[in-house]
């Protein structure tokens, strides 16, 4: 099974703080890390490939330097190949553009039986890439899987466990397919220190291409969504009291908890 996992690097939440009153983001350090759910998707891909004979994992990321770092991490964790579509401008890109790039990149990787990615993206509106890609390829899509396994009986099918109200359920899909992986659904392995150093020492660790080399011109990369800026939630206030009889208070509390 050839698995491709899509990775996104983002600014480490610990490296900046948000001041709601000043309506500003203060960046303290230039630190990036893998989108948390993508980290779980990468682990799911490695586990699945490890469990199936002849399984391979290729990691794919688009963007600037942080995307490259994410791919080195994937190599150090065990991904056999990595493709970096290098383009600074793709970092804040919208879902349609990323989907287009991924489609071309999949072709360059020689296709895939399964594409995994994180079910949510912490810093951008890019969780839509999974279902978009599936629609574009005409493949099935399953959202927020907790565990992926090859279907025991039938070749070329996959079982995915999903969280549903009241418990876990499984679905079976045919391959090729796109599956997004729920955040924290597994514990990603740590890359070993030697494998990190080896990944960086290997000049062939990453296959680096530009969008143009994938046959994408400016028109193909034209955004359908503009990023106008940032806005900020109102300043947090403490101490709001729920008043009334016990019944009133409980009703208000229940309403808020159900949100």
């Amino acid at each position, binding site marked *: 099974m050839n698995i491709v996992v899509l990775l996104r690097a983002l600014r480490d939440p610990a490296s900046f703080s948000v001041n709601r009153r000043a309506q500003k983001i203060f960046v303290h350090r230039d630190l990036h890390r893998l989108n948390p759910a993508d980290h779980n998707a990468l682990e799911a891909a490695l586990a699945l490939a490890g469990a199936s004979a002849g399984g391979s994992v290729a990691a794919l990321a688009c963007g600037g330097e942080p995307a490259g770092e994410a791919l080195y991490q994937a190599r*150090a964790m065990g991904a056999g190949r990595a493709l970096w579509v290098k383009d600074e401008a793709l970092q804040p890109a919208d879902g349609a553009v990323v989907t287009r790039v991924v489609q071309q990149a999949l072709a360059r990787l020689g296709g895939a039986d399964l594409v995994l990615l994180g079910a949510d993206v912490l810093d951008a509106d890019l969780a839509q890439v999974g279902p978009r890609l599936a629609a574009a390829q005409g493949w099935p899509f399953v959202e927020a899987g907790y565990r992926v396994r090859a279907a025991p009986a039938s070749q070329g099918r996959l079982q995915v466990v999903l969280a549903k109200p009241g418990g876990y359920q499984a679905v079976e899909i045919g391959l090729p397919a796109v599956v997004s992986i729920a955040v924290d659904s597994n514990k990603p392995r*740590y890359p*070993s*220190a*030697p494998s*990190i150093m*080896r990944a960086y020492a290997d000049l062939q660790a990453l296959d680096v291409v530009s969008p143009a080399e994938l046959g994408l011109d400016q028109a193909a990369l034209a955004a359908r969504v503009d990023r106008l800026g940032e806005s900020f939630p109102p300043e947090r206030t403490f101490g709001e009291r729920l008043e009334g009889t016990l019944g009133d208070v409980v009703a208000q509390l229940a309403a808020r908890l159900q949100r």
Partner: protein
Amino acid sequence: MDFTFSPQHAALRRMLRDFCQQELRPRAAQVDHTGQPDREILRWMGELGLFGVPFSQEYGGAGAGEIGYCILMEELNRVCPSTAAIIGAHIGIAAMSLYLDGSPALKRKYLPDLCAGRAIGAFGLTEPNAGSDAAAIQLRATLEGDAYFLDGQKMWITNGPIADLVMVLAVTDPALGAHGGATVFVVETNTAGFSAGKPEKKMGLHGSPTSVLNFDDVRVPKENVLGQVGLGFVTFMKTLDIGRVSLGAATLGGAEAALQASLRWVKARSQFGRPIANMQSIQFMLADMATEIEALRSLVYRTAWLVDTDRPFVKEAGMCKLLGSETASRCIDRALQIHGALGVSREFHIERGWRDARIGEIFEGTNEIQRIVIASELLQEIGVRIRP
């Protein structure tokens, strides 16, 4: 001038930060309270290659150099100084002496196991009557046929009770003494006649066992001579020189943890109707801590760079250990003060850090010895030679 870490070192730190925060930190209090190293986590660290971070991959290391090793020690000591001490003695002095001066055959024999954590190493220099004056060692090694027989005692040996291999400095020629008559041996601890004493009861580093090592006619084959016969003292001193850099890195991690805890606490804790962060005396402590930490960080990583680029580093290495251990002690002491009663609570890591940090001013050469090292380097630069 470029003060940024290389991408591979940044990636190494990312992995280490995650591992230490998620896996090691939750176990640190337990390690201290029970006084038992956590064998499970040590095994895991071995699998991740953390027992051989600075050494070349040829011998099973990670090939991350002194800078990578300093990152390791900084991150470990941030959360668990006991575990950092185990790794520090294992890599920084035990395996390092083999790496620096061992023959290729001896390195091939032992380094892969040491790097993978399958064998834990110890560094045996100090004796009951030879502390700062390491040249006063008495442990004897006598050659009989194709083997040496070691007789005597080492003391205060980190990893003593858990070591599989000990690098031991022994007198091979009493006429010459340590300078020219001492030799390093790699001793397998399962050899007859070897025994480790009970772990010492120390004020800190409870999870890092330190003990006496007894040698009763321990047979060591000639092939296990590390380096040249008679030149062992040089090997050990060279090893300690390098070890001081990473010890400085460890103290850096301890000081940073203290500052971090303090910053959180001054914001959360209110007295006299306002957060104590608003009090100037508290602010001054924070400013002093941050300044000293920044100075230490610059010194440590610049010195590591000197090591990795084969430049002279002995003076700076002494400074790393001296400034580092005193900075850490001061910062953790201030952090303890800032936390008030919570600072002395045995349920909180500041008290543990305070106990753990103090030892930094003593082992691997007391701070008085560091000052002597630094001064002798300084004076040598103007043509004056001194001896302690």
